[in-house]
């Protein structure tokens, strides 16, 4: 997994609530058995005017010029600014895969849907929760200044604006640790294999019907 430590990049405003994972990556692209290559279909139905097909070459497709990520000033965006309940709906991890593949490193919103939030951390993508007021302030600043960039400092848990304003954010210790070091959860959990076996032995005594039944 990619590490996330310090990142500075162009921020783009996705000004709507409840952006769902169907919107982030429509279902026809979930047929891939790979983990990469989803970036060209990120926000496919918002980004292009035609209907996207799996394995289709996307250069040359008609672009929706009104869509924020298609605008010249937001080329190279790596930080998304969004409204409440970002990432709701389906559990598809293809959503963070698509964001990451497109070049997004962090999403800032007042709230996230849980499964999406969780999936981000497995993919080196940092979701940041800030208050409604702060998000509103950032929306205004982004709109006012072309080339507006934010810096995200995970170690210090700060979002830094171009004016130097430092905005603190919260994050679980465990998630922060994994992201800073690019750690693989499975390896960490297997360090506790003895605890898992001990629990499993106890479980076999309590609920023997759960063992050996499915075959």
């Amino acid at each position: 997994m990619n590490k996330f430590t310090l990142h500075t990049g162009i921020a783009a405003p996705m000004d709507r609530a409840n952006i769902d994972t169907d919107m982030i990556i429509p279902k026809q692209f979930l047929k891939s058995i790979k983990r990469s290559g989803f970036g060209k279909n990120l926000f496919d139905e918002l980004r292009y005017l035609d209907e996207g097909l799996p394995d289709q070459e996307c250069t040359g497709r008609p672009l929706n010029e009104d869509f924020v990520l298609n605008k010249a000033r937001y080329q190279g965006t790596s930080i998304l600014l969004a409204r409440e309940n970002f990432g709701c709906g389906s559990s598809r991890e293809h959503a963070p895969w698509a964001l990451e593949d497109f070049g997004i490193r962090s999403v800032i919103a007042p709230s996230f849907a849980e499964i999406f939030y969780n999936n981000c951390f497995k993919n080196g993508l940092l979701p940041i929760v800030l208050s409604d007021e702060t998000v509103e302030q950032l929306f205004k600043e982004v709109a006012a200044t072309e080339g507006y960039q934010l810096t995200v400092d995970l170690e210090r848990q700060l979002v830094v604006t171009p004016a130097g304003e430092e905005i603190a954010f919260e994050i679980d210790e465990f998630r922060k640790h994994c992201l800073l070091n690019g750690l693989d959860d499975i390896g960490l959990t297997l360090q506790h294999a003895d605890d898992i076996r001990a629990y499993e032995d106890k479980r076999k005594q309590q609920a023997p019907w759960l063992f050996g039944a499915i075959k």
Partner: protein
Amino acid sequence: MAGKTLYDKLFESHLVRQNEDGSSLIYIDRQVLHEVTSPQAFEGLRLAGRQPWRIDANIATPDHNVPTTERSAGVDQIADPVSRIQVKTLDSNCDEFGILEFKMNDQRQGIVHVMAPEQGAILPGVTAVCGDSHTATLGALGALAHGVGTSEVEHVLATQCLITKKMKNMLVRVDGELGIGVTPKDVVLHVIGVIGTAGGTGYAIEFGGDVFRNMSMEGRMTVCNMAIEAGARVGLVAVDQTTVDYVEGRAFAPKGAQWLQAVEAWKDLVSDTDAEFDEVVVINGAEIEPQVTWGTSPEMVVGVGDQVPNPANETDQVKIDGINRALQYMGLEADQKITDIKLDRVFIGSCTNSRIEDLRDAAKVVEGRKVAENIIQALVVPGSGLVKEQAEKEGLDKIFTDAGLEWREPGCSMCLAMNPDKLGNGEHCASTSNRNFEGRQGFGGRTHLVSPAMAAAAAVAGHFVDVRELIK
């Protein structure tokens, strides 16, 4: 000390390890796998040289991509090459690792959340995950079940555990009795309308009160299924005699002495009377009307006798923008009557509403009637091969086809249109599925979520109609 909620009990009884950083390692008794969210997890195991921790905790079936038309020639017959590869990949992964899979033409194949409880693979008191957000369905059995992403599918395959954090507890209590023609789907849509699409975020929702106590297991599954549409990863209903009766005799349920031992253990799977919930929502069941969603989020829902909302009545700008965008996408006018919404297609199916009871409800409405002329297609897609068989035994297939609906093979179908069943651009669909997001059922498609009875009524009327007028 206050008593424990059902969620607390399930969580605590599966705790393997409490980590210093506040996260918890919990044991997962069951994982259900399907073709869309598992290939990268199996690939991850292979790349790391890992084996599944426990083979007998897993069960698999293809559902999202499978065609629902005649498919006796097998997987090679799947027309879409990418869908075909995905289904074949599940088959080969399960074969390679020795995981039990009900392949496409096995009669036990079906939508994961229909198949797993039907087989007794999910039992009261277990923890279960699946790479699908509607895994919440399984909480209807008093199991702690939720959707996970593909990295977590791999994590559970490799370790039989999940790193998680305890959720908060919410009780949604629906008291009293439901009116005639008002179904579990209407109850859960109404609940989502009340608490909002993010209202349950961070919570495990327990559904309590007379309405759920008197509800069948099928109905409870419909309700828990849509907990995620209120933001809650987990929906739960306490175990009672209805649960025990449902489980008894199923293929992977305990038998003999173990059955008696299990039933005894399951008696504790209720919230203590003095349990404290972080949030309690109380609704009067008698006031719930048949529901119809008008917009592009499940919280955009009203009673069938109501009108499409008017943004002029709102004050919050984000909300006003949301309503305007939804009206434009859906091609509707503010204040338009719900019963004036004309429909093009009808879909009866999905992990929310494709169980036998759902099909009976729909059949009752269409029996002796005909699908309206303006309806291009009305699909009935049973949730599993076994549901299909039962429905055919009862003659429901005949009722549907006589009325002009199509009777299909089991799968996810038009709920998310990964297979050939989809809406055309701009078409309105009365759908018994769970999400009305933009493009969900096909590019530019317009989804209205309803109960099976309401979908059936819409099929014969050609527009929304209060089903209570048809079943008087």
